[in-house]
């Protein structure tokens, strides 16, 4: 009786060692193939794609394989007069890509090469009277955008450009019966959204609002028998949740509530031994998004071959230290 547990089974033949060199080669090759179908079809998220690629390269100690000049020129070319950044040249400005742009600039210590005042103006102009944030001028509201806005301003050291209390209250109005957070008031909890809300509260030093034991329990229940983590109850495991769930647990000081060794095994099984890179689940197609979150997850789990990652910004810890951004961790 009852519903079977949604999960995958790890094959014995699945990779069990970290194939760092292959992942470096995969990301390097991916960014070189600019005329390929996959690359062209994902232009609408290029800025985030570059952030994923650069961050994972930096975490693997291979940032020097990427072209700083080329990237910075591209980023500069994506800034609009309003201050916001689009995903690519000519694409509309949006908070999602503005955060990615600021993360890239921070990684390369190149924030001064763009108009920072304008970015701050753009971000703060999107805050609404109820404290929420529009993603762009068209008015979609989502707690992801609250995180983007706050993370952006934190990296630019200008948190006071928004109404912090209202921003916090809006995010708190999205808290649910399970201690998690959703997109908007009334929305179901989702690990990605929880990461955004907990991360935002961490930057703003308001983690006492989080019911850490309740939320931590819900988050550690994301671990399935395969060792992988899902994003919501009764869903399949996925490598990107190794990041959203783990980082949230790390921020609220409860990372040890999951079985580390089993999760490491699951993440490693999602590697593609031929091409390098990570997929969402073992045997699926790899992409840079899952490659970053696989590597970043392993970093949080203490893999020594990977550099330390900051759980709030998903950037190398030493970059966050260099910028001097502080945050609260329970």
């Amino acid at each position, binding site marked *: 009786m009852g*519903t079977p547990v949604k999960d995958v089974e790890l094959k014995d033949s699945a990779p069990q060692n970290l194939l760092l060199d292959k992942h470096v080669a995969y990301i390097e090759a991916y960014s070189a193939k600019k005329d390929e179908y996959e690359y062209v079809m994902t232009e609408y998220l290029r800025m985030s794609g570059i952030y994923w690629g650069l961050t994972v390269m930096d975490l693997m100690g291979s940032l020097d394989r990427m072209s700083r000049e080329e990237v910075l020129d591209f980023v500069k070319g994506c800034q609009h007069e309003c201050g916001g950044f689009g995903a690519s040249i000519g694409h509309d400005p949006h908070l999602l890509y503005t955060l990615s742009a600021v993360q890239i600039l921070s990684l390369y210590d190149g924030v001064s090469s763009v108009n920072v005042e304008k970015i701050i103006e753009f971000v703060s102009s999107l805050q609404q009277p109820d404290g929420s944030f529009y993603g762009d001028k068209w008015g979609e509201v989502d707690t992801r955008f609250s995180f983007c806005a706050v993370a952006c301003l934190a990296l630019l050291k200008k948190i006071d450009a928004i109404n912090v209390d209202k921003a916090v209250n809006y995010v708190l109005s999205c808290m649910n019966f399970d201690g998690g957070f959703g997109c908007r008031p009334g929305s179901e909890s989702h690990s990605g959204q929880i990461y955004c809300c907990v991360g935002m509260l961490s930057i703003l030093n308001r983690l006492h609002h989080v019911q850490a034991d309740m939320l931590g329990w819900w988050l550690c229940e994301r671990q399935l028998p395969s060792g992988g983590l899902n994003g919501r109850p*009764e869903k399949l495991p996925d490598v990107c949740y190794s990041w959203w769930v783990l980082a949230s647990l790390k921020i609220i000081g409860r990372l040890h509530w999951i079985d580390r060794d089993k999760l490491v095994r699951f993440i490693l099984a999602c590697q593609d031994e031929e091409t390098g890179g990570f997929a*969402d689940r073992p045997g699926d197609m790899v992409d840079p998004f899952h490659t970053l979150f696989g590597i970043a997850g392993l970093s949080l789990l203490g893999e020594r071959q990977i550099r330390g990652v900051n759980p709030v910004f998903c950037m190398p810890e030493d970059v966050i230290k260099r910028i001097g951004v502080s945050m609260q961790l329970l």
Partner: protein
Amino acid sequence: MHGRLKVKTTAEQQEAKRKEREKKMKLYNAATSKIFQKRQGQEYDQEALELTAQILSANSDFYTLWNYRKEIFLAFKEKSTEDELHKLFEDELSFLEACLKGNPKSYGCWEHRCFVMLTMPCPDWDRELMLCNKYLEYDERNFHCWDYRRFVVKRAQVTPEAEFEFTTSKISSNFSNYSSWHYRSKLLPLIHPDPKHPGGVKDDVLIKEFELAQNAFFTDPNDQSAWFYHRWLLGRAEKQLAIDCVYVSRELRRVMVRLSKPAKIGADLSLQVSLDGVQCTGEWTTPANSNDHSLLWLFNLTAPLDGNEHKVMVAMEGSSRSCTLKDGDEKASSVDEVKPGTLFSYQLSAATSDTLTQELDACQQLYELEPDNKWVLLTIMLLMRAIDPLKYLKETLEHIDTIIKVDPCRTNYYKDLRSKFLIENAIEEQGLSAKSVDLSNRELTTLRHTEYMCTAERIDLSNNKLSSLPGCESFQCVKELELKGNQLKSCEKMECLPLLEDLSLTDNSISTMEGLRPLTLCSKLKKLNIMGNPLCEQDDFVEELRNMLPSLDTLIT
């Protein structure tokens, strides 16, 4: 890229695919450059709609193109007749439905649908509700669709009662529907608010919900949805902000306050201190020396407290607490003792004790049928905690041992939970004004509720499994701290303990001098025992330590 299986292909197949993709890409590139060109020229016409539709039907995440379509619709709205507009928007809704069929989780599609509905004349909200029903048939967990549903419900003026019925029908067709249970948790307090507990639910309604959850977990005891909902029904009463404890130290010229829930003085509330009827001015800080939200707050009096009797009063809006420092006494505190076993039950106490007992009976029946079910075990423990944490302690601890066996993945969660239970019971039993708190030999893996030990002068945490001391900065009155036999690597936060005189770190894991550095700020520290730490194997460490902590009388290595 989610859920795309990697398939082995031959070189021939690959070549064919490459050619096909090349062709697609050419068309794609041609269409996008045309679109951008037209948009540059502010051409808001049918052709632009067609071109963007071509791209979006294959790639609905291309947000800039949705924005262009929005501009086109706004431009049409200025110049078209009502009939034309009606047709135009209707076509857009059909187009969106086609896109959603291919990609029901596209943020862009759902968001654009909201725009269309808010922009078009005479939108048909009822039809949208049917659309939501349909999409929730396909996938009852699609959170985009649930969110769109809530957007529609608001405008279609569907009552919360009707939506509640909808979740009932969804749950009865499939108990395993977390989204529906979630929605119920939002609707229930709207429909049946409990006037006594803000955010709570009336008791008779609660009983019905307990029944529904029971039905669900008796049908499928491994489905977590109903268990999470059940845990929520057990509820937590929201505490009122109040001053729970005031402590005065003559020597430190300091007032310490414990609030009933974390708050930030200056932001969430203002607290006034008066000494013998005269209002004092000064700064509030937390034990960790910040001004973040905290249960504990410290206030330094500027004037010295002479040897006579003094009365200190701390007041906030709607609440105050006084404390009299008697002639010659060094310190005084004021705190209400509570009935043992009730201090922490607020975490699980919205239901009446009759209801809780019934729930416990039902769960115990299920446990007999399902002895390896972790959900029922955990729920039994929580019910026992809510009913009588002291009486049920032995059984609770046995259940913890069992649950670790049946669900080893979350061993550390259960161990921390056990630590929390044991600390709560110790505080309940030893009382809130205990001068000496004994938490030794309990296999504690973490600390909780340290704020309730803020007035203890001796705290014994020896022979546990602590690798850190979260919240130890709350031990503001501790003079003697016994930490023997743990796994501590450092003295983090101990710099915040102003009265610490005697510290035992025997048999821990301190391996560096750096780990002891916080102690340099403990000006009263006279006795330190660090026997049995890896540090003791280093050459010259005694001398180095003596130099670092020159005021120590006794150093045991």
